[in-house]
C-alpha cells in the first residue's frame, strides 16, 4: 500500500514538473499568461500607505497652518477597500475681530468603493468613500475686538489668551477621488471631501471655528468641505489570479 502511494506521488510530481515547464515556456512576463482565449493576470492585494501632499504644501505656504496626514487602505475584496486617515492640524484664524488658534488630532475610518473597470493588469481607482471622523483638539482664543458700528472711541481689543481644551467633534464624510499607479508600487491620488458634523463640543460664549480633519466650520450649517492630494505606496500582501476572456 505504501508502495502504491509512493508511485502515485512520484508520477504526480513528474506530471506537475512537466506541466510547470510548459507553463513557464508560454509565459513571456511574470504577470501575463495567455492560454487559449483567456488572459490570467495577478491582481495585487495589500496595504496602501499614503502621505497627504496638500497639507505639507499648505504648511509651507500658509504661515497660519501646520498639518500632516497619513492614510492607509486595505483591499478587502475586488472593489472594496477598508480605509482610514490619521492626522494632526494646527490652524490659526487671524481676522479683524478674532484671533484664534486650533490644535489637535483626528482619525477617520471607513471604506472606499472602486467604480472603475481597469484595463488588464492595471491597478487604478476611481472611488467613492464614506468615513466616520473623530477629532480631539483645543482652541486658544488669543484676542478679540468688541464690535461697534461707529469709531468714536478707539477699538476695544481684549487680549484674553483663553484656552478651551479637550474638545471633541465627530462627523460623517463622503469622499470621491482617484488614484493612479505612477510606477512600481507608487500611486498618486486626489480626492474631495464633503462632511456633515454629527456632534461637537459646546463652548461657553465662543464657538468652534476650526476642527482638525473637518477643517473650518460654518456658523449656520453643519456642512464642511475639504480635499487632499497624496502619494502612496502599496505593500503587496498577496495576489489573486484574475481571468479575463480575450475578444480576438
Amino acid at each position, binding site marked *: 500500500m505504501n508502495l502504491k502511494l509512493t508511485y502515485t506521488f512520484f508520477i504526480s510530481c513528474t506530471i506537475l514538473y512537466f506541466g510547470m515547464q510548459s507553463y513557464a515556456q508560454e509565459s513571456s512576463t511574470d504577470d501575463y499568461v495567455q492560454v487559449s482565449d483567456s488572459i490570467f493576470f495577478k491582481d495585487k492585494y495589500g496595504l496602501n500607505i499614503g502621505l497627504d501632499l496638500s497639507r505639507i504644501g499648505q504648511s509651507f505656504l500658509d504661515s497660519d497652518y501646520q498639518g500632516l496626514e497619513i492614510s492607509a487602505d486595505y483591499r478587502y475584496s475586488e472593489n472594496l477597500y477598508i480605509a482610514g486617515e490619521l492626522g494632526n492640524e494646527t490652524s490659526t484664524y487671524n481676522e479683524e475681530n478674532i484671533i484664534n488658534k486650533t490644535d489637535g488630532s483626528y482619525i477617520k475610518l471607513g471604506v472606499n468603493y472602486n467604480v472603475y473597470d481597469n484595463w488588464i493588469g492595471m491597478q487604478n481607482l476611481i472611488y467613492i468613500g464614506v468615513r466616520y471622523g473623530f477629532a480631539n483638539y483645543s482652541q486658544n482664543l488669543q484676542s*478679540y475686538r468688541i464690535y461697534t458700528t461707529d469709531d*468714536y*472711541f478707539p477699538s476695544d481689543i*481684549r487680549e484674553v489668551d483663553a484656552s478651551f481644551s479637550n474638545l471633541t467633534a465627530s462627523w460623517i464624510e463622503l469622499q*470621491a477621488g482617484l488614484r493612479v499607479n505612477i510606477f512600481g508600487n507608487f500611486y498618486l491620488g486626489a480626492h474631495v471631501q464633503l462632511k456633515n458634523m454629527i456632534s461637537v463640543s459646546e463652548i461657553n460664549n465662543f464657538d468652534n471655528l476650526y476642527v482638525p480633519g473637518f477643517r473650518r466650520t*460654518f*456658523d449656520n450649517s453643519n456642512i464642511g*468641505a475639504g480635499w487632499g492630494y497624496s502619494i502612496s505606496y502599496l505593500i503587496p500582501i498577496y495576489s489573486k489570479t484574475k481571468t479575463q476572456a480575450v475578444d480576438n
Partner: protein
Amino acid sequence: MKKGLVYGVISAFLALSMYSCERDDICAEAIATTPKLVIEFFDANNPERNKNVNSLLVREIEKDSTLGFTSTSTIAIPLKTNAIETRYIFNINSQSESGGLIDTLNFSYATVETYLNRACGYKVDFIDFRARKETDDINWIKDIQVRETTIDNEFETHLYLFY
C-alpha cells in the same frame, strides 16, 4: 449604473460646496452688535411731547471730537465698552453767539461680552445702567429718567431727557 453613481456624487459635491461657500467672514449689518445709548428729548413744560434739539453737540469729556445732532428728538451715542462709566458734555444751541448751554451727564453701568460669530467677534451689552447729572444747578437739562436699565439693543429708548 456605476457612471450614474459617479455623476450623482459629483453633482452632490458641486451643489453642496456652493451652498457651504456662502461668505461669512464679513460682519453683516443685520447682526445686532454693541448697542448705543438711545436718548429721547421731551419738553420739560409739557412732558408728553417730544422736543427737537437744535444744534446739540455731544462730547465725551476726555475727547476733542464731538457728535452733532440737530432737528431731532432722538439721538444715539456710544458708551465706552472698556470702562464702567462714560461722561458726556451736552452742549445745546452750540451755534448761537453765546455758545449755548452746557450740562454734563454721567452714565455708569456694567458690561457683558457676548460672542456673535467669527466675522463680528464679540459685542458688549450694558446692564445696571444709571444716569445722573454731574451738577445740581440747572443749566438746560431739567430732568433725566432712565427707562431701561439693560441696554442690549437700539430699538428701545433707554433714557428720557426733559428740558
